[in-house]
């Protein structure tokens, strides 16, 4: 027994200290730093929001001028969407998915490390640009012609467009890794109909990333080339079209919000299932709902363009499609409530956040249905009504589940429980603060207040709701401080967590908290949807079926068929490596250089090609990739 553990520890260990930190390819270590970094960006973007809310607390306020304000809301939106929301959801998946499917690492460990560095460098670049007063100024949506070189001179928009390149490369890498992990690395016996709902949600999300991100890649690349080398994509005078930007951006932008939201749906299922102490009601319809949402999400983007003068018949089609996506969501709400109703619910902190999700996401979803209606949208589009809507669905629908998931999975990730009392305080502060901030904004929009304004006139009745919203934002800020404090304190002095503190059903909880570097001592096998709950005889499981034969003396996993999870082969995964970091640096140099000089693309490609080649070149030190002798 312990000989096996010793071998595993040696095969899967990282080198000690700083070298180990920069060369690790352990999905858990990479995911934890991804999550921590995303939370830093969340706080930074939140501070920007606080400053904006302070400016808007009073009419005709002169705290901040228009140029600074415009950069702030552009940074707030861009950082929240590109540097926080998508990366943190993917990061949680990078941690959880390999454990839930019963394997030892993610499918492309070095690519995973690379994606973190690229994400970090892109985020750092844009914040440096902001601090140097060359931050983006055209919103997170960067509409042309405002973002073209005529109306947005200098490097501001170029930095923004290139930041998109960085973050989209990172997101695409992770998406491919998750698809490959879920399709080939599942524990034998984990057929498609036995996959946990969170894994399903991440699989569908990853496909959405794969099909949506190319659109923003094209859009931002066209913008960069228009600005830097004179292409005419968006120039009406030479056959281009400003609406081309909107079509390409929103073809990405609408699925983007579902990319953020769908992992949260998976988190809700995990939490509801565990804390209702029964399987989710109607598993198959729940899976179909996720898949349907994933497909439908691609057919809605024109609802962001109802005011652009497109043919009314076309607009009406998008009304119908945009409303219909509420159907799978509605189905899921029903199934979760049914699960709670027929289970034995208990309300630990993760469940509190789920309750918050219900209260807030349903409201946001309903205002979404309102926005789907063309005539109504023509009134509230581009007003604070929309700001209210998307914060209800993004914070209510994604951040609340994320916070619940953090409380839920923190014990597994760190080996300590996150403080329960502080958690309750944090929840209520956040819930109340959120509603005080954003509910009045529905009213503001209906009363005529447009978005993206650095100030507003007195006497329009907007003063009081704005003041209330500002006060609410301070309450939210306090709650985030409580969260940060709770995280910091619990990591150091939290109650030690057992393997399975919540009595949950999936394989994630079949190993220690935190898991060893190799996740599972022996490769698990599953015979049902809830491996840790019930075996075929109806008794709670006290043993876990496992397979022998996967090597301990090198990094090896077991691959199985995509549908039925029948073992196919053993597969060696790579050892730690510094080359993902060097490659990310080389690519960063290429990306940043090309903002200033188009030849940067060519010259920068040389070091990038070298680092990538060395990355893939088999090295003597690469024990694992040497084959069987």
């Amino acid at each position, binding site marked *: 027994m312990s000989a096996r553990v010793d071998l595993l520890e040696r095969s899967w260990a990282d080198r000690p200290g700083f070298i180990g930190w920069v060369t690790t390819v352990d999905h858990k270590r990479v995911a934890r730093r991804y999550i921590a970094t995303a939370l830093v960006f969340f706080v930074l973007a939140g501070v920007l929001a606080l400053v904006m809310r302070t400016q808007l607390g009073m009419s005709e306020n002169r705290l901040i001028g228009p140029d600074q304000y415009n950069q702030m809301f552009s940074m707030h939106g861009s950082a929240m969407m590109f540097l926080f929301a998508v990366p943190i959801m993917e990061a949680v998946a990078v941690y959880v998915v390999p454990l839930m499917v019963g394997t030892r690492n993610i499918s492309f460990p070095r690519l995973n490390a690379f994606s973190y560095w690229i994400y970090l460098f892109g985020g750092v670049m844009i914040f440096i640009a902001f601090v140097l007063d060359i931050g983006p100024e055209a919103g997170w949506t960067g509409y042309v012609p405002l973002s073209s070189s*005529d109306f947005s001179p200098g490097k501001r928009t170029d930095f923004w467009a290139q930041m998109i390149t960085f973050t989209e490369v990172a997101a695409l890498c992770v998406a491919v890794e998750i698809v490959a992990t879920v399709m080939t690395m599942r524990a034998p016996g984990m057929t498609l109909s036995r996959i946990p709902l969170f894994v399903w949600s991440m699989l569908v999300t990853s496909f959405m990333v794969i099909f949506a991100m190319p659109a923003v890649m094209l859009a931002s690349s066209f913008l960069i080339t228009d600005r830097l080398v004179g292409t005419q994509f968006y120039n009406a005078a030479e056959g281009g079209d400003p609406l081309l930007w909107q079509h390409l951006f929103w073809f990405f932008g609408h699925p983007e919000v579902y990319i953020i939201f769908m992992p949260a749906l998976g988190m809700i299922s995990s939490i509801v299932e565990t804390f209702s102490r029964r399987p989710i009601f109607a598993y198959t319809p729940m899976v179909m709902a996720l898949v349907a949402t994933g497909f439908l999400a691609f057919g809605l983007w024109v609802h962001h363009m109802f005011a652009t003068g497109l043919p009314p018949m076309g607009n009406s089609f998008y009304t119908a499609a945009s409303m219909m996506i509420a159907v799978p969501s509605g189905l899921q709400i029903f199934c979760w409530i049914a699960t709670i109703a027929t289970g034995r619910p208990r309300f630990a902190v993760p469940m509190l956040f789920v309750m918050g999700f219900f209260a807030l996401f349903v409201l946001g979803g309903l205002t979404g249905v309102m926005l789907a209606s063309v005539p109504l949208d023509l009134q509230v589009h581009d007003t604070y009504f929309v700001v209210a809507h998307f914060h209800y669905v993004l914070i209510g629908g994604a951040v609340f589940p994320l916070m619940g998931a953090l409380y839920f999975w923190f014990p597994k990730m760190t080996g300590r429980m996150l403080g329960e009392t502080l958690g309750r305080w944090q929840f209520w502060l956040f819930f109340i603060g959120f509603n005080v901030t954003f509910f009045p904004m529905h009213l503001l929009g209906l009363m005529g207040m447009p978005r993206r304004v650095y100030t507003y006139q007195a006497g329009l009745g907007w003063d009081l709701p704005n003041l209330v919203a500002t006060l609410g934002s301070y309450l939210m800020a306090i709650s985030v401080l409580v969260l940060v404090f709770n995280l910091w304190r619990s990591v150091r002095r939290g109650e030690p967590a057992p393997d399975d503190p919540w009595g949950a059903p999936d394989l994630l909880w079949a190993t220690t908290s935190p898991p060893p570097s190799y996740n599972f001592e022996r490769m698990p096998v599953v015979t049902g949807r809830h491996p840790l709950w019930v075996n075929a005889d109806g008794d709670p499981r006290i043993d876990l079926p496992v397979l022998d034969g996967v090597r301990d003396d090198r990094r090896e996993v077991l691959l199985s068929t995509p549908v039925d999870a029948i073992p196919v082969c053993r597969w060696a995964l790579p050892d730690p490596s510094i080359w993902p970091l060097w490659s990310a640096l080389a690519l960063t140099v290429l990306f940043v250089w090309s903002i200033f000089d188009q030849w940067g693309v060519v010259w920068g490609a040389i070091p990038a090609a070298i680092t990538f080649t060395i990355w893939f070149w088999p090295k003597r030190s690469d024990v694992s990739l040497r084959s069987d002798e």
Partner: protein
Amino acid sequence: MKPMRALLPVFAMLLAACGGVQSSLAPAADQSKAIDHVWQVMVWACSTIYLFTLGALAWAIWRRRAIATREGVSRDPMLSRALFAWVVLVVGLLTWFVAISFLADRRLHGGTPDLEVRITAKQWWWQVEYLSPEPARQFITANELRLPRDRTARIELRSGDVIHSFWVPSLSGKEDLIPGYTNAVFITPRRDGSFRGQCAEFCGLQHAHMALDVQVTDEATFRSWVSQQLRPASSPVTASALRGAELFNTTACASCHTVRGTPAGGRVGPDLTHLASRRTLAAGALPMRRDDLSKWLDDPQHPKPGNLMPAVPLSPDDSNAIVDYLMGLK
């Protein structure tokens, strides 16, 4: 109860704001009324669904329950039937919403216009051209729109630079002004009054200060306003105003602004022929008062930083003279 009484002024304020000059909740035209009808249906229906969902959740949490087992409950046929019924209800509700939206949308387009206006949006003001089959009856003004009650106006929308959005919530939904495109909205006002519009598509530094002053009057008042606008600029009378006119035409002013009937023919900035008859300055950034006009002239960047009007260095006397001239352009 004390808390309720404290909230009363809050509600009163909110109610007043709901009926404000830029509120979509106090519709004053056919188009905004059609939209308001959709809003009323949806807000009541959605609120009901919301409360129902929260109620179901509350029931789920607090209901009395027999000992539930881990398996078997999934196959509960009653729950499955309830799920099916719920999906049917949701689909039905959404279909109803789609239908009323489609019908309301049709009311927003078309109708034979009695009046045609062409608005060209620029950073950060509105050029407003009243069109007519007779060229001699066309005129240009800026940042204001006057409409006759009970007549349908077709507002053609173009952009001179970036994307803007024309929005007068009391009268109709919004429509973007996009370079290279020509869009249009129809407005049939049904109530006299003053309304406020505002650009609703982020268009740069002074997007926040790009308002439109809209006035709806009876037809007779409208026609007399049109006649007045068609006249060339009033000639300056006082010595100061005469000097102001001369300064205007010989310094930077005339290179950007037009005053019809004078040599000033610049087309970069707003037409100022009847400036003093307007109610606001600088697209709603300032009221149309002598002091404000004076402050604007001396430093346009202070109330509207980043706007495209430069501060022309003028002595206080010169500045005063120009203001006198401009205040006479009724």
